[in-house]
């Protein structure tokens, strides 16, 4: 039966896994109403505006 000749080193394992560990920053745009950075295609959590319309009244307690 075929068997690995060497133990996989820590470095080799980590090198392989590191590809999937990459962190990416979310793409942000500035809100057209208040200038708050918001996620694309989302209602602004700070002022509740989306495409020039008041969608929700933001929670003032938070």
């Amino acid at each position, binding site marked *: 039966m075929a068997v690995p000749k060497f133990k996989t080193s820590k470095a080799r394992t980590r090198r392989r896994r590191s590809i999937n560990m990459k962190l990416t920053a979310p793409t942000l745009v500035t809100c057209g109403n208040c200038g708050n950075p918001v996620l694309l295609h*989302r209602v602004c959590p700070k002022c509740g505006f989306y495409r020039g319309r008041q969608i*929700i*009244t933001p929670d003032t307690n938070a």
Partner: protein
Amino acid sequence: MKHKIGFNKLNRVPAHRKALLRNMATVLFKHERIVTTKAKAKEVRREAEKMITRAKEDSVHNRRVVGRKITDEAVLAKLFTDIGPRFKERNGGYTRILKLGERQHDAADMVVLELVDRKDDGKKAKREERKAEKKAKKAEKAE
């Protein structure tokens, strides 16, 4: 073959799912706007749009077909006398989904599901007024 024709079971048994969709569609017609999760909104929209299409033509048959799902008579009447006629000229796409971001508790994608031609009924303005009043009172007390 039933390939690529799926729907979201929403982790519920058929009876539970049916009840959920009915209730949410009823509430949507009643308030014209609901805040829910994205997955639920997409499934409710499916049901609700079919009902609105039925409601465009007010006939005994159509009323009975929709009435099987909407048991609230007041909402059914509203659907056929108000919402249906409003959408006469529109061929589908009666609802709109607006993304709100993630819910704090479980990071569920939250959305607003609303009828496309929903008008601001002034309720929000009233609510704001009341809030302002409360704040003013609090400020008075603090002094």
